[in-house]
């Protein structure tokens, strides 16, 4: 069964701006799925429509086979949303915020109280349960939004840039928690993120959206195989004055002359690269990838599209 199924979804705002131009998307149950795209691509509009915050212009959306036009109550009961912006009552206590959302989902007070305690403890917020939400740090607010989204135990959790503005430690702990609930509880997770490293580390499938259209989708591993180049940064033992000409490798200089960048074609052995460098008296002390592979693939796709439309 698909957790989410979208057919020919369009959205035109009152201003005339066409945010979605007919997207089709399927997310299987149990998947960890990323929706990637540059700012203004249509990610948040798509998520807004799925979660009933935005009115669609046309198209069909099914959540666990519940049509949002027909079975809205069942569809909404299946979804937990972690929005991009903080949207709390700033005067309400942490505990009441989670309890209220449990109530909106029809969970009785007694059960809501025990679930609220469970999720606040799990997300390290129990000590702050009586604090007003405005007193929380940014990372705590992010975690509160996750606790609030999970309190009715949805089958589909949607996170719109969940780790934006949080430090690395909290980001990693959120990654661990999301992976845990996906693996152990079977919750389907859809996230949008600007951190492509995040999508590569967490997700099995991705869709890339740009200009209101899906321009690529599939398994992360499959998309990465489509990537034709990988770029490495090499630290050399001394400054490299003249860049080597060693096809099929392409070298570029960096501001630090003891570092050079090299594009390595997919499938090309790195042994051959080091042999060629050794023969040019270049000694490599260490190396790292310039950026994650998904990011490179993403940038190339988006720039290709921009080039095609300009």
């Amino acid at each position, binding site marked *: 069964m698909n957790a989410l199924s979208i057919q020919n979804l369009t959205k035109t705002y009152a201003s005339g701006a066409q945010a979605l131009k007919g997207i089709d998307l399927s997310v299987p149950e149990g998947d960890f799925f990323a929706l990637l795209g540059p700012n203004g691509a249509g990610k948040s509009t798509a998520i807004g429509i799925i*979660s*009933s*915050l935005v009115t669609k212009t046309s198209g069909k959306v099914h959540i666990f086979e519940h049509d949002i036009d027909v079975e809205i*109550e069942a569809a909404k009961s299946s979804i937990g949303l972690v929005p991009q912006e903080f949207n709390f009552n700033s*005067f309400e206590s942490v505990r009441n915020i989670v309890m209220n959302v449990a109530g909106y*989902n029809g969970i009785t007070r007694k059960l809501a109280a025990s679930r609220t305690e469970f999720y606040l403890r799990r997300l390290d917020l129990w000590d702050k349960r009586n604090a007003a939400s405005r007193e929380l740090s940014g990372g705590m607010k992010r975690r509160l939004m996750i606790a609030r989204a999970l309190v009715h135990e949805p089958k589909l959790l949607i996170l719109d840039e969940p780790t934006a503005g949080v430090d690395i430690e909290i980001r990693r702990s959120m990654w661990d928690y999301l992976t845990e609930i996906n693996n152990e509880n079977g919750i389907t997770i859809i996230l949008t993120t600007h951190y492509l490293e995040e999508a590569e580390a967490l997700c099995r499938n991705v869709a890339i959206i740009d200009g209101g259209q899906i321009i690529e989708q599939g398994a992360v591993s499959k998309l990465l195989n489509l990537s034709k180049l990988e770029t490495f940064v090499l630290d050399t033992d001394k400054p490299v004055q003249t860049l080597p000409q060693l096809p099929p490798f392409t070298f570029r200089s960096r501001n630090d002359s003891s570092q050079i960048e090299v594009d390595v074609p997919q499938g090309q052995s790195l042994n051959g690269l080091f042999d060629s460098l050794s023969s040019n008296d270049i000694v490599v002390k260490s190396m790292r990838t310039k950026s994650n592979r998904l990011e490179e693939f993403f940038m190339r796709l988006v720039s290709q599209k921009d080039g095609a439309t300009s």
Partner: protein
Amino acid sequence: MSGWSLQWVAYTTIVRREVRRFMRIWVQTITPPAVNAVLYIIIFGGLIGSRIREVNGVPYMDFLVPGIIMMGIISNSYANVSSSFFSTKLQKYIEEMLVSPVSNLTILLGYVSGGVARGIAVGLVVSAVALVFIDLKPMFPLITLSIAILTSVVFSIGGLINAVYAKSFDEVSVVPNFVLTPLTYLGGIFYSVNMLPPLAEKISLFNPILYMINGFRFGILGVSDIPLWQSFAVIIVFIVILATVAIILLNRGTGIKT
């Protein structure tokens, strides 16, 4: 859980949240109407009223008090829902309800119940204050209570419609300042419409608040400028019209969805 049981739990959650909100800030929400009531009763009822004999066969102080109570109920029912619903929009936590399976009817009923709770709470506080000055015993308690609650429903729904359209707190205060207050003051709190010149009396009959205040006054004193059935009819017609408008706006997502 689904269906009616889900909506019931959601409804009680909204009402509990709304009552908690106005009780948390009771200094702002409950005490000012009590202070106002004391001032009105002392100045108009005591100082000026002592020079007026009777109105519609009752002492002026007794005539005045039901209107003062209704003024508190009307303004506080409206203010509670308009400011609370607008805050949920402004801080975007209305999204908590929009992504949940709460029906729009439940949202409307929840907010209106919160507004009625505050309106009646203020009415009781003002009544308690009035007891210091007069012997306040409603002649028809059921009529008194039903007119108070139904009037509170009218203005709670009105407050929600105002908040749906409002884009700033200024827009939340426009209707209370420039529509509600004048209509309330001209709605027969301080005088009987029989005391007005014929044309002004006829114009006053187009003011719906006149029917509400007189219905309430009838419940307490047994005297009114308006037949009781007309008071109920006007209030119920307004509830039906405003509730229909409110549901249409919520279903369309006016002011709350893009």
